[in-house]
């Protein structure tokens, strides 16, 4: 027996066809919901950084421009510890570094406003343009402490997204964004994981200690091996190596 004939421009479809389709639509809804649960549940590599979007706080410290803008503060952000220097990387809104905002302020004590970005033991401030107020004349900055030469394996990320602005802020899905951010001046950071999966962060600089942003754009979000000199600048580890010597890991 052939199925009842269906014509779409009629007011109603044949009852047998309607009953058949109702069963399939219910099955499709259930299957769709199941797939939604499975796919949403199985994707998990988002990262646990925090971005205090819309929350603007005031910060005091000394500006350091190299290799990337940072603020030297007297205590780690978010703790009560005293008499400890800590460096907080600075970035501008959007996919931009804070180079233009702090130009010429090397060594000056300032007050600025911005939103905090944190992940693990790393801190960053998205500076609100126009809020940097110079409080005192320039003072001599401290030199970093050389820790020796190391060969490190990890992934280059743009620190702003990885520390909390984007979820996820690394690997292939975020690669193009990381290229844009680092191209715009956000500090490139090598994320190295130890055997327990704990992350150690190295701000990337050239062998002369200068910024390398434009030279690492084709090496972002993929496994790399970098050999260079590690220098401790307060709480920040800086890895000095020429980008041409970075080695891709297959």
């Amino acid at each position: 027996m052939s199925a009842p004939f269906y014509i779409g421009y009629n007011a109603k479809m044949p009852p047998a066809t309607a009953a058949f389709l109702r069963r399939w639509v219910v099955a499709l809804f259930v299957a769709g919901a199941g797939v939604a649960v499975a796919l949403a549940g199985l994707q998990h590599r988002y990262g646990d950084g925090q971005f205090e979007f819309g929350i603007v706080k005031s910060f005091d410290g000394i500006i350091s421009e190299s290799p990337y803008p940072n603020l030297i503060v007297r205590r780690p952000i978010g703790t009560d510890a005293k008499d400890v220097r800590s460096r907080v990387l600075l970035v501008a809104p959007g996919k931009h570094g804070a180079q233009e905002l702090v130009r010429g302020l090397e060594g000056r004590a300032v007050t600025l406003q911005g939103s905090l970005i944190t992940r693990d033991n790393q801190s960053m401030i998205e500076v609100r343009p126009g809020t940097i107020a110079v409080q005192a004349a320039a003072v001599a900055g401290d030199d970093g402490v050389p820790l020796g030469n190391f060969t490190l394996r990890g992934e280059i990320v743009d620190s702003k997204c990885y520390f909390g602005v984007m979820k996820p802020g690394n690997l292939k899905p975020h690669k193009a964004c990381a290229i844009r951010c680092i191209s715009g001046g956000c500090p490139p950071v090598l994320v190295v994981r130890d055997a327990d999966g704990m992350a150690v962060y190295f701000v990337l600089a050239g062998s002369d200690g200068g910024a390398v942003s434009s030279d690492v754009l084709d090496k972002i979000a993929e496994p790399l091996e970098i050999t260079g000199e590690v220098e401790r600048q307060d709480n920040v580890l800086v890895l000095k190596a020429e980008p041409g010597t970075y080695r891709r890991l297959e």
Partner: protein
Amino acid sequence: MTLAYQAISWNRQKRVYDTVMAGGVLTFLAVFVVTGLVLHSEITAEALLIRALGTGAFLLLNVVLSIGPLCRVDPRFLPMLYNRRHMGVATFLLGAAHGGFALVQFHALGDVNPLVSVLTGNTDVQRLSEFPFEWFGLFALVLLFLMAATSHDFWLANLTAPVWKALHMGVYLAYAALVLHVVLGVLQAETSPWLVGVLGLGMAWILGLHVFTGWREWCGDREHAGATADGFVEVCAVADIPENRARVVTLGGERVAVFRYDGKVSALSSVCRHQNGPLGEGCVVDGFVTCPWHGYQYLPETGASPPPFTESVPTFAVKIVMGQVWVHPRPNAPGTRVEPAKIG
């Protein structure tokens, strides 16, 4: 069938169709977002929305691609095909929302124009694993847009059927591009084998369904090998054709629908002029051969649509000898009147 073009000729069935479809899409998005928030409290709303919209668009495209072959398996699926273009447009809108949010999230507020960033940000085409997956997504979105924008019968008529059909076969290209978009994008970071399994299952379903129905079509398209006399070919017994329905045979490489109705038999092309629908799987309604896909109608004796419509299909000479139907395989010009063979 309508004579004047309207954006959408709304009727109750269309409203039900769109309501159910919108309900399904919203249910999927809601379940995805709620599950994501419950299981991954660290995720941001925009990231969750981007993934929910992209996943929803891809899943809906799987449904769209399933409808055609499912209708070949069971004609009770035909109501899903009648308004399939609505589902295609919904797929494009979901994809556009996914692409739009991703464009803002990953490419806006930078040192170059966001669209330039999509095309020039990652240009590593030497290694497959690093290939810019965004290009495949953008390519698929352009194809989905072209198909959504030209899905109306106005474009079918003005682009001509072959061009329109070729353009809309691009849906398979879009599907392939989206598979690459997923494999070279999110699956490079999310490495759960279950995710790969779900994608593979969808691909196997689409491919299997098309291969199965294609094989059945191919078997049915084999040249009919009946007896011949005076140029006519014996195709079947009159009793083999259900009343108001057709028997489809392939003669001279063409699908010919032999309809039995009202004590008569007529033969005409089985290919509807609208979207190449299977006219031979249609039915005679109110004296007209009616296409099962979108209800286009033709007079069985002439192959012509009733005035004021102008579509017409080729007809074939037909006769009945000793209860057997004989058809001449040479097609007459579309709309040519052929005297039907009388039964008994």
